[in-house]
C-alpha cells in the first residue's frame, strides 16, 4: 500500500536558521513526488515535482531533493513568511495522489 510519512510534525526555527523537512515514502512505481505549501484556511499551493532519484529543484529559499526512499525539503535562511504547513505527496501506479500529514513550520523573527 502506498504510504507517505513526514517528519517532524512541527518545527520552530529562528529567522535565518536553516533546516530540512523529511518525507519518507513507499509506493509501487513512483510517477512523481510533490511538495506543496498550505497556509491556514487556504488550499495547498504547488511548489515542486520530482520524478527520479537524484533529482533536485530549487525555488528561492527552498530546495527539494529525492532518493529512492525519501525526499527532503531544505530551507535556507528562512523568513517569517515561510511559516506554513508543508505537504509531501506521491503518485504511484494509480491516478490518485497520497499525501502525508504535513510539517507545520514556524519561523520566529
Amino acid at each position: 500500500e502506498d504510504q507517505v510519512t513526514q517528519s517532524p510534525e512541527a518545527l520552530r526555527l529562528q529567522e535565518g536558521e536553516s533546516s530540512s523537512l523529511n518525507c519518507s515514502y513507499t509506493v509501487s512505481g513512483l510517477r512523481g513526488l510533490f511538495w506543496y505549501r498550505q497556509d491556514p484556511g487556504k488550499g495547498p499551493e504547488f511548489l515542486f515535482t520530482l520524478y527520479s532519484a537524484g533529482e533536485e529543484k530549487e525555488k528561492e529559499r527552498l530546495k527539494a531533493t529525492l532518493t529512492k526512499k525519501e525526499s527532503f525539503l531544505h530551507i535556507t535562511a528562512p523568513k517569517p513568511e515561510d511559516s506554513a504547513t508543508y505537504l509531501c505527496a506521491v503518485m504511484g501506479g494509480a491516478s490518485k495522489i497520497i499525501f502525508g500529514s504535513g510539517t507545520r513550520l514556524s519561523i520566529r523573527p
Partner: protein
Amino acid sequence: GAGVSQSPRYKVAKRGQDVALRCDPISGHVSLFWYQQALGQGPEFLTYFQNEAQLDKSGLPSDRFFAERPEGSVSTLKIQRTQQEDSAVYLCASSSQLAGGSEQYFGPGTRLTVT
C-alpha cells in the same frame, strides 16, 4: 488568470441533510480531483475525473458520497444524509494534464460542519 474556485466556502448542515459542493476548475483543465482534509491531516483522495469521465472513485468513503462533472468543466460533490464524521474541508484541484505526475492547482476548499 482565475484559479480554482469553490462554493460555498463554509457550509453548516444538520445531521441527515443533503449538501452539494461546487468546484469551478481552471478553464481548459482536463483533470479534476476531490479531496477530504481533516483538521491537522493531509488531504485524502476522494475521486478523479478526466473531462466528464469519473475514472477513479475509490476514495469515496460511502455510497452517500456522489460526484459528477457532466460537461467536463464544473464539478459537484454531493453528500446525502450527512453524518458528523463528514465534517471536514473538501478540496477541489485541477490539472492541465492527464493524471500522471503533473502538478495540481487547488481551490480554497469548502469547510463543512455537520451538527
